[in-house]
């Protein structure tokens, strides 16, 4: 073999090694208790399932090859089509495995119910509003709001209430918690926490238009001091999230940078939930003819 040919597997190996870094982005690199529990559940279910797929993966090639036509030493029983013990063997173990899985499933679906409050300190309340193509986070107790940046205190549970100002979206924090839909006129909930200070990613997983791929935001977990400092700095922001600012934000747009609001109109989330908050996106549509694809990706939105 020429030495050049060795390079190909080497290159492939390097690519695979480089690619495994991708798993750091998701649930296999958990940054909070919920994601960690999901990962453990994943490993557990996978281990149980090895008993299901293992025999098939071994038997299929083995049987097919052993009983090939050209093998004259293999048995041939063309009329053999039923056997009671074998029937038991192919029906009972799968049923048993599903029963075992079902027990774990029942338990873990309840413990990992996104609506179930996390134990420990009182949760930080955050209200999330899904917009085209950004996320607004309102901190009702603190009276501040952000867009495209979720700041949370590390080590303290967070309780998120979600709704949508537009179409259905799916909220995911890959390293912190599972998905939950945000739908207009309805409130869904998500409980999660971060172990330690640090930045992770949040995103919308449900396609919602031309800016979908850019609908990502940073989740910043901070220690208590850092969070207090951030809160003070945000409260000092002169921007107010009122009806006009909300209307401007609700147009379809991709923001170049996250926004912060020092004050928020009270009950804004409730008004969005009640569908009583005037929204801007419907206006956008008047500008577009029958061909919707001519819609501009980024409209000039300035909430400041």
């Amino acid at each position: 073999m020429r030495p050049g040919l060795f390079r190909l597997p080497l290159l492939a190996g390097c690519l695979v090694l480089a690619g495994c870094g991708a798993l750091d982005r998701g649930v296999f690199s958990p940054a909070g208790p919920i994601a960690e529990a999901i990962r453990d559940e994943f490993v557990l279910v996978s281990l149980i399932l090895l008993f299901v797929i293992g025999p098939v993966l071994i038997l299929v090639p083995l049987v097919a090859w052993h009983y090939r036509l050209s093998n004259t030493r293999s048995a041939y029983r063309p009329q053999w089509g039923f056997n009671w013990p074998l029937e038991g063997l192919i029906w009972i173990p799968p049923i048993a495995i599903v029963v075992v899985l079902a027990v774990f499933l029942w338990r873990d679906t309840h413990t990992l119910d996104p609506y179930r409050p996390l134990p420990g300190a009182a949760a930080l309340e955050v209200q999330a509003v899904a917009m085209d193509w950004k996320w607004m986070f309102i901190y009702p107790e603190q009276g501040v709001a952000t867009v495209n940046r979720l700041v949370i205190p590390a080590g303290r549970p967070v309780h998120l209430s979600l709704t949508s100002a537009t179409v259905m979206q799916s909220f995911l924090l890959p390293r912190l918690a599972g998905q939950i839909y945000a739908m207009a006129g309805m409130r869904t909930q998500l409980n999660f926490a971060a172990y330690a200070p640090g930045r992770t990613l949040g995103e919308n997983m449900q396609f919602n238009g031309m800016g979908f791929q850019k609908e990502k935001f940073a989740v910043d977990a901070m220690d208590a001091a850092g969070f207090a400092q951030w809160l003070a700095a945000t409260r000092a922001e002169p921007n107010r999230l009122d009806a006009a600012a909300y209307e401007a934000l609700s147009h379809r747009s991709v923001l170049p940078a996250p926004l912060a609001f020092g004050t928020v109109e009270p009950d804004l989330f409730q008004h969005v939930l009640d569908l009583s908050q005037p929204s801007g996106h419907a206006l956008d549509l008047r500008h577009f003819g029958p061909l919707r694809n001519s819609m501009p990706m980024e409209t000039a939105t300035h909430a400041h």
Partner: protein
Amino acid sequence: MLTETHGVAHVLLGNLTWAALPFVRAWRDPNVSEIIGTGAGAVVILGAIAMFALVTWLGKWRYLWTEWFTSLDHKKIGIMYVVLAGVMLARALVEAVLIRTQQAVAINAPGYVEPGHFAQLFTTHGSIMVFFMAMPFLTGLINYVVPLQIGARDMAFPYMNSVGFWLTAAGAALMMVSLAVGEFSTGGWSGYPPYTELAFSGGVGPDYWIWAISLSSLGSMTVGINVACTIFKMRAPGMNFMRLPLFCWTSLCTSILMIFAMPPLTAVTLLLAGDRYLGMHFFTDDGGGNMMNYVNMFWLFGHPEVYILILPAFGVYSEVISAFSSKELYGYTSLVLATMAIAVLSFTVWLHHFFTMGQGADVNAVFGIATMTIGIPTGVKIYDWIFTMFRGEVRFTPSMLFSIAFLVTFTLGGFTGIILATPPLDYAVHDSLFLVAHFHNMLIPGTLYGMVAGYMFWFPKAFGFRLNERWGRIAVACWVPGFFLAFFPLYLLGLAGMARRTQAVFDPAFRPWLYAALLGALLMISGLVTLFVQLYVSIRDRAANRVPVGDPWDARGLEWSVAAPPPEWNFATIPHVGDRDAFYWRKRNKGAYRAADHYRDIVLPKNSACGVVLGVASGLCCFGLIWHIWWMALLFGLLAVATIIVRPFMRDVTRVIPAVEVEAVDRAWLAQAHAARPVPREEEQSSLNQGLAEGFPELVAKRA
């Protein structure tokens, strides 16, 4: 005016303007994305012109019309379904490659397809693969094979069969027209509102989707009724239910699923049309609408649909594995029970498509457990197929290779299916590439491999010559590794949090996996090319590979007991069935290839243009609705209704084949059979194979 029409033009053309044509858009704003769109439109138009010119030049219009388009023969309609599926498969697979290419090159870069086009690509890819590739393919196989397997001369309702095909073809035509006129929906194959409502998706895209899907779902419902009635009422004497070939059982279950699962889809697309056309509020954000109703109704169709797609392939595998293992099916009763169990359970799991909608843990857990329960009968089937090979004589023909690849690949898909059925795990990977990888892992081995295996298995029956096995094996060598390369990286990317349907990627760590997936997609499209090459080579060399006697694989069902291709009337005399694997036992007891005691006249349905008229009229009516060309919608809608009303009043819809003609054809074929040299299994993939199998006792003698 380029963007709006007024006055007379508006009455005549509705919303149709110059800007609807991709060529005009590309002229006004030339960029790669528009040019690709134009190229696709040009392929459709040039392809249509080329086909038209070719048929005219060959002078084959009359032949096509009388022998194919207006035919009510289940075999011809079946073949037309498969041809339609092949054309649509080619388009949707090209789209898949474009999708994979875009994601591979758009890593912190714009790529070459803009978001609007990308969204149309994944929407058309999914819609076509489900409704206009998989559905026609399996319907075609069922159409061709089931009447032959149960010993019938046609379907229960031959005219409805034609109607079903032409409605599906009209839907497929709308999909193709959308490439050249206007644009398609960007809302994905499931078309979730409120995104597909007027408030968020103006334009004609969702309307194309609604009407194409509505036509297809109506067509599929008629197929379901037809196949179920055929199997219930048209079985040959002695063919009781527990003697049915397994393909008939899976076809029966599929058709029952079609009857019950298609109406929710038709209803939900029409309700969405009500929102879009009449200002109703079924699924809007405002006015009391609730999109959750859409999601529930869609998946009330959508989950049984998965089994509509997979069960016929299970039937094919049962036939293929049994035939190419030279052995009766292991666990026939188990397989029948498992098939029925899957069909029933498929209606109890739809909620697992939206575990993340915020319903309580009890509900999620119940549906999660119901979903895992389907794994039991499915696992039983896998073992039944393994034990069918056990103590058999396995021949590695391309169909068999696809079946073996299915057993392994599908099991891995089942593994990830159980993962997704566990609600907390679904929370993590829902709407990610993990999900995309999973359902491709079920549907490519679970439907496509099965359909291709069935096509290769029954092709010699339908056309009288074998398909080239070498090119068949090359196809396997492309499809199977191509699948693993294309989709296993997506599992990992999904676990890394990569969303599905994303036009751009912002994490360079995803790059190697996206490259691997692209490579896999290219390998799979090479697989499709090899299938076309195989067809070409086989037609070219057909003289050497004819199997006129009709039983090239020493197979077991009644369909192999007649000539290849079978006469129009299938059976000169309706067979009497005494056992499962009827033809196998007849061969064994020296009862095969015998002339009848006496022949009778056979009554067959006459050709009818009504199906074609109904399909064309419905297609044009829907085109009018899409572009708000009201006169067109009204005119052709009335024509369609008139066709439905007029047809039952037509007299003289049957014709009689005289007994002498039946006898002459049958005796000519029997003479061929008696003159043919029986082929041993070792040589069935050679020119020696004339479709007469060397009998079973010889094989036993060899062993003894």
